[in-house]
């Protein structure tokens, strides 16, 4: 390596390292064990969100099949050694990811595929897990999620708008928080919304406010309005 740049000879060595790892596995494990390892690496590396706890109705057997799809479109051994970025160009990796997503969509169907996509979003997982066993229907949860996501995007735009003064931003964000609070409370119901706030109230408030450092720099009081 020269000044942080990988040379062709470095790539050859890294490839040899990856191949050596595969050969060592083949020597120490039965072929079925190597295959199982590849699938489990796929499950642990890129499919952590794909579980019932995150709102994706999937069985163990289905998850194994999905892991196979991922292992067939990604080099799991290179990933295990953290060499994926070095050994494969970004374009090729993107193609592998796109191929996997297409195979996954066909395997699960449109509705469950949408569940998988939502499960990747921390906002959705927070809503789902905090309101678990609170009698919140899936439709209500999705409604709350859309409101929460839209609020996040609006807050980002308000913060980035250079035309606004700090005071205007604070006012707009406070209004957005109040509006989102009402929307979530309506969708989740008082019990569900209370459970959500109990676990994620702080993140909810912070994500729809000015950054604390900026407020301190401006010498302003926090514009945070308690939501409960």
């Amino acid at each position, binding site marked *: 390596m020269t000044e942080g740049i990988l040379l062709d000879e470095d790539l050859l060595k890294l490839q040899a390292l990856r191949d050596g790892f595969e050969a060592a596995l083949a020597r120490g494990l039965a072929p079925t064990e190597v295959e199982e390892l590849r699938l*489990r690496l796929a499950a642990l590396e890129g499919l952590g969100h794909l579980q019932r706890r995150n709102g994706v109705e999937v069985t163990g057997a289905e998850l194994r099949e999905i892991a196979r799809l991922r292992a067939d479109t990604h080099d799991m051994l290179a990933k295990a050694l953290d060499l994926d970025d070095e050994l494969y160009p970004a374009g090729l990796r993107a193609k592998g990811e796109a191929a996997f997503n297409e195979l996954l969509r066909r395997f699960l169907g449109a509705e469950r595929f949408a569940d998988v996509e939502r499960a990747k979003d921390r906002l959705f997982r927070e809503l789902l897990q905090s309101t678990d066993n609170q009698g919140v229907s899936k439709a209500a949860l999705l409604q709350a999620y859309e409101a929460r996501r839209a609020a996040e995007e609006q807050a980002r735009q308000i913060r980035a708008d250079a035309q606004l003064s700090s005071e205007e931003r604070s006012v707009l964000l406070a209004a957005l928080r109040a509006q989102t609070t009402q929307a979530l409370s309506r969708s989740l119901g008082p019990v569900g919304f209370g459970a959500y706030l109990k676990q994620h109230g702080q993140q909810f408030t912070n994500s729809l406010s000015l950054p604390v450092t900026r407020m301190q720099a401006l010498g302003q009081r926090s514009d945070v309005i308690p939501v409960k």
Partner: protein
Amino acid sequence: MNLRGYILGTMAANLALVGALLWQGARMPGPGARGGVSITTNIVTEFAPEAAPRPAVVSVPGSPPFRWEQIESTNHLLFLTNLLAIGCPPETARDILDARVADDFRARLRELTRPLQARFWDVAAAGQKFDELFEEPELEKQIDLLKAERTRALAGVQGCRA
């Protein structure tokens, strides 16, 4: 001299020459019987002789052949005693036993947890923690027993050395 006479003369000379060569060959001694120049006319490819397989037994004059089976035992302490009895250095004997105890523990732990392997995918799909698999009281008890047995075996190895 006419042509016929010339041919007959040549043939007679060749026959005499062949006869002389045959007579000389019959008198030639075998190679190595005496000094002299020998000419090798063919190319020989030499093969390195394969290493002779290690004999399964070690013969010591005046004693019966030693066999590994004589000292081998699944009982760690007995095996250790046998190793020391044949003059194995204590450090080496301890290393052998330590490795054997570790291998034994690993194999039995793997066997004990084999049923959990089948549950990997269901646990992953449910989003449970894998650690929870090991939190079954009966399994924990079995693993603790296995660990205690390993500790005893290692302590026995140490004690036998002392």
